[in-house]
């Protein structure tokens, strides 16, 4: 980096960014964990050592005033951003208060600007004091957050700790909402042991009241997965609401626990593709089969014979699965920006047309027929045997 004239600190920052996008980031995080504490301690000792007390005592009012001014100004901007990006309630406040400090990169910038004579040498110690003191005040802001802000946004004044999971099952289900409940009930009713995780303490409590056992915790945390028994499990069902977290969870599971079969719930078509790309073994769109059942009922309601409606629904389903596969193959080959481009769209239109042709095909043309049902032979077929 110094060859290019940029600071090594920026270089390490960029290295981190690049690694964060690689497939090794989980291992990286786990491996760095022990060093993080050590190095963080060292860093903050350096920060503290940089506080020049003579300068501080001489310009106390100026420094404190500047610090508070910076924090308030930054806080106001952050609060505005939080509103703009719809970070509501407690999250918005956390965002504001935690980032209101001047940031440790300020030290790098100040020393760089001194070297290049951008700032006069006498104001730099004051500015670095401002940065250091704003960092010093941040833990106080966190305490403020815990005491004043959190209670206003939650019924419980403190988050319950994740439950101690004292049993291991062969099946782990993440999410015990509308989707996960059905799966859990079906498995439990047949004597299959499940360990259920959910991120909402209220939901866990509701489930306990109707005698369905689940554990509170965030399924995307590797240590929680470990205590849930992911190493001994054979099946993992991802039934959580949050789309990006679902994709990340599937990726993590497939990466770190290759033996595990992963079933995933998809919100819509795009989410379906993303989950497949992440490696999920089986993906179902959460509304698809309900809508299809409703479609069959709709056919019956307009006078179609129930069995015919059933077969038409089946034919639709078969074609839909095949088309989805073709569309996915087109989607996955393209790089990120072009995925819903013209080739995908034209394929989609083409397949939709094929669907309607296939559904009302004449039964004589049996090779093109979408749905294979018993059909009588032609009227005069006995003459074939003459």
């Amino acid at each position, binding site marked *: 980096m110094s060859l290019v004239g940029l600071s090594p600190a920026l270089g390490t920052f960029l290295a981190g960014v690049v690694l964060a996008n690689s497939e090794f980031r989980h291992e990286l995080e786990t491996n760095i964990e022990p060093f993080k504490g050590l190095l963080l301690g060292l860093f903050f000792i350096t920060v503290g050592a940089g506080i020049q007390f003579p300068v501080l005592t001489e310009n106390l009012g100026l420094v404190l005033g500047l610090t508070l001014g910076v924090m308030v100004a930054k806080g106001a901007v952050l609060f505005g951003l939080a509103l703009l990006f719809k970070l509501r309630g407690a999250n918005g406040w956390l965002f504001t208060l935690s980032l209101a400090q001047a940031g440790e990169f300020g030290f790098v910038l100040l020393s760089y600007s001194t070297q290049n004579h951008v700032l006069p040498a006498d104001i730099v110690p004051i500015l670095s004091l401002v940065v250091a003191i704003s960092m010093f005040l941040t833990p106080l802001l966190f305490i403020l957050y815990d005491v004043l802000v959190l209670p206003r946004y939650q019924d419980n004044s403190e988050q319950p700790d994740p439950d101690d999971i004292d049993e291991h099952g062969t099946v782990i289900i993440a999410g015990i909402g509308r989707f996960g409940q059905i799966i859990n009930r079906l498995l439990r009713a047949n004597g299959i042991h499940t360990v259920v995780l959910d991120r909402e303490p209220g939901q866990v409590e509701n489930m306990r009241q109707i005698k369905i056992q689940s554990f509170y915790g965030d399924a995307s945390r590797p240590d929680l997965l470990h205590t849930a028994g992911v190493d001994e499990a054979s099946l993992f069902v991802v039934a959580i609401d949050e789309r990006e977290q679902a994709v990340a969870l599937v990726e993590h599971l497939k990466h770190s626990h290759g033996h595990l079969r992963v079933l995933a719930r998809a919100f819509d078509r795009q989410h379906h593709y993303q989950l497949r790309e992440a490696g999920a073994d089986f993906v179902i769109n959460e509304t698809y089969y309900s809508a299809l059942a409703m479609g069959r009922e709709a056919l019956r309601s307009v006078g179609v014979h129930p069995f015919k409606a059933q077969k038409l629904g*089946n034919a639709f389903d*078969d074609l839909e699965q095949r088309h989805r596969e073709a569309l996915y193959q087109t989607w996955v080959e393209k790089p990120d920006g072009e995925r819903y481009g013209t080739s995908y769209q034209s394929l989609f239109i083409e397949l939709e047309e094929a669907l309607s042709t296939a559904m009302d095909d004449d039964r004589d043309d*049996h090779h093109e027929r979408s749905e*294979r*049902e*018993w*059909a009588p*032979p*032609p009227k005069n*077929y006995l003459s*074939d045997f003459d």
Partner: protein
Amino acid sequence: MLIKRRVLVLFAHPSLERSEVNVELLRRSRETEAVTVVDLYEQYPDFRIDVEAEQQRLLEHDVIVFMFPLYWYSTPAILKEWQDLVLEYGFAYGKDGNALHGKWFAWSLGCPAGCMAPLLSRLSWQWSSSAIA
């Protein structure tokens, strides 16, 4: 001289956990070389038979074997569904329906001792010749 034939076993048993004889026959068939074993209830648990795939499979084999427990002197439902759908006019019978010409056909069916007499006298030749003709 032994002519090596490709054998297809179409197995139909709706409740394998209750099976005593067929399950053993299934296991032995699976262990035999050059035998393709298809468990129809396993392949099509919702009875949605892929007719194209099944016809293709028939074309690729020389000996077709139905293996099943006898239910009311007939096959379990899925094998009947298979016959209804796969043995189409124009494929298995009728004009140009000679895809199965020259192939061999066999049954392996299980029923209590003594059930065979009425079965043999009523069903066998009439049924098999019309299906394979």
